[in-house]
């Protein structure tokens, strides 16, 4: 346990002294704020027209439908694009700088190394999500919003991040080049993302169903709409564990080369 905390601490330390995490955070927050602003402006124009007709406020559910659902959708796609930057360094750099030799000859297990890196990345990601909470908070000042679907959306985003980061970690374990690691991670994530889109077109066949089930975006959709299904929970958690397992296997097999 102590080893795990040491390893998480070291990774967090390296995150906070390198510019990558800050750049990722800034891009994420700036882009999601901008997209959020576009949604809000759209709805406010719409509602001013409504108000003339109905003399009433915009109902909460419509606020969620009209503002948060598109915002979270956009946010998840932005995350897909930037999260590989958070994980690309994790194993690639250890290999390149030969520090893997230190880790692998120290009395710590590969599981601890993999989980140390994963949890550190998750903590950084959690921080990112917490920072983005200012969007609903700001909106809640001017209008009533329903918090339940917001929380389920955040839960969904958090679990989705687990998949992104574990797959990114796996990609990073494959190479000692950070750029290649990021590109591989993009490849895996985009494959998982659009699997559903292409699968939906062929949904009669069994392959189509599998593709839909594997699609990250489809599972996230439920959370964003305020539905937490065990099917999606199982999906996110098992995909995360799959990424970590693959990563473990790669690190482990590296020794046998």
């Amino acid at each position, binding site marked *: 346990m102590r080893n795990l905390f040491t390893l998480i601490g070291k990774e967090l330390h390296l995150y906070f002294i390198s510019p990558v995490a800050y750049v990722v955070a800034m891009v994420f927050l700036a882009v999601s704020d901008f997209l959020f602003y576009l949604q809000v402006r759209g709805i406010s124009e719409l509602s001013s027209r409504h108000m003339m007709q109905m003399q009433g406020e915009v109902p909460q559910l419509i606020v969620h439908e009209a503002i948060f659902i598109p915002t979270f959708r956009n946010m998840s796609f932005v995350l897909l694009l930037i999260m590989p930057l958070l994980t690309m360094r994790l194993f690639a750099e250890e290999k390149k*700088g030969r520090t893997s030799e*230190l880790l692998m*000859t*120290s009395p710590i297990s590969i599981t601890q190394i993999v989980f140390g890196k994963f949890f550190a990345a998750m903590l950084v990601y959690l921080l990112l999500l917490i920072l983005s909470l200012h969007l609903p908070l700001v909106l809640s000042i001017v209008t009533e919003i329903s918090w339940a679907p917001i929380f389920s959306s955040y839960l969904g985003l958090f679990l989705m991040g687990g998949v992104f980061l574990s797959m990114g970690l796996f990609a990073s374990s494959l190479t000692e080049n950070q750029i290649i690691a990021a590109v591989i991670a993009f490849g895996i994530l985009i494959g998982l993302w659009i699997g559903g889109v292409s699968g939906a077109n062929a949904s009669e066949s069994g392959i189509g169903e599998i593709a839909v089930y594997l699609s990250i975006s489809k599972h996230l959709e439920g959370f964003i709409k305020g539905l937490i299904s065990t099917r999606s929970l199982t999906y996110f958690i098992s995909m995360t564990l799959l990424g970590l397992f693959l990563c473990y296997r790669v690190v482990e097999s590296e020794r046998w080369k």
Partner: protein
Amino acid sequence: MIAVKQLSKRYGPVVAIDDVSFTVDKGEILAFLGPNGAGKTTTMRILTCFMPATSGTATIAGFDIFEEPMAVKRRIGYLPESPPLYPEMTVEEYLVFVAKIKGLPRAAIQPGLKGAIEKCGLGEVSRRLIGNLSKGYRQRVGLAQALIHNPDVLILDEPTVGLDPRQIIEIRELIKGLAGDHTIILSTHILPEATAVCQKVVIISRGRIVAVDSQEKLSSRVRKSEKISLRIRRGDAASLEKIKAVAGVLQVSPQASEEDEVAYIVESNLGQDIREHLSKTVVEHGMGLLEMKPLVLSLEEVFLQLTTEEKMPESQQQTVKDAS
């Protein structure tokens, strides 16, 4: 303390080491000497449980490297060929991190850190970023990293590489000082390093051990005095006395020789050429000089002979090919 038994390692078709066996006693320093690509690093990586061997095994402090790797890792300090450093960390941050993952109890971390910094002469740079240090200082940080948890066994892959001559001497002294409490294996291409620091030398070439020797035996092979092989036609006790009387001669030892001649090894101080006086004496007393040649069968030569003898034909073939 360390027992290596018939260790072999293949990388696909490449045999990196083949049937390597040796032992190191507690408190001893063993040098692993060999040219590039001999398999030194490979052997050390296996001993530190970084990678498994293809066959054979080894025990360190009584623990098998395959069956109880965690127990072995806890007892080893390892300086890899390129020091495993995080350039973004300061020396202190890095060493504290290493101390923690090596399992040092919390209370022992600060004393361990202080000790390692002091031993490796890092006091002045302890708060600087590792990325900004010179190569020599990085090597020292690598060494500090290996000894921070005060391990029973130290495995050092070319510890003096990249250091300036004064630092080399300092680090050698440091390593010598560590022996006794620690059992040490170090690798080097440099022969004087092996003889200066180590009790035992294993010479390895292309994956095979070609010689294992103790330091005493090595020193006797290493040139400490000038030696001249002298062969004369007529030699007796009187001529022996006369040769001994030549200015600068330290010792004369008779050698086994053929019937009608006598052979001596004449030793003199290092750097002193007595050949002129010697030949004059021999000729003046009518001993019948047959041959006089300096003997320089130093360990360097032994090393070169042992590690290159099979390569000679290859390079000759090469020249033949080039010529044709």
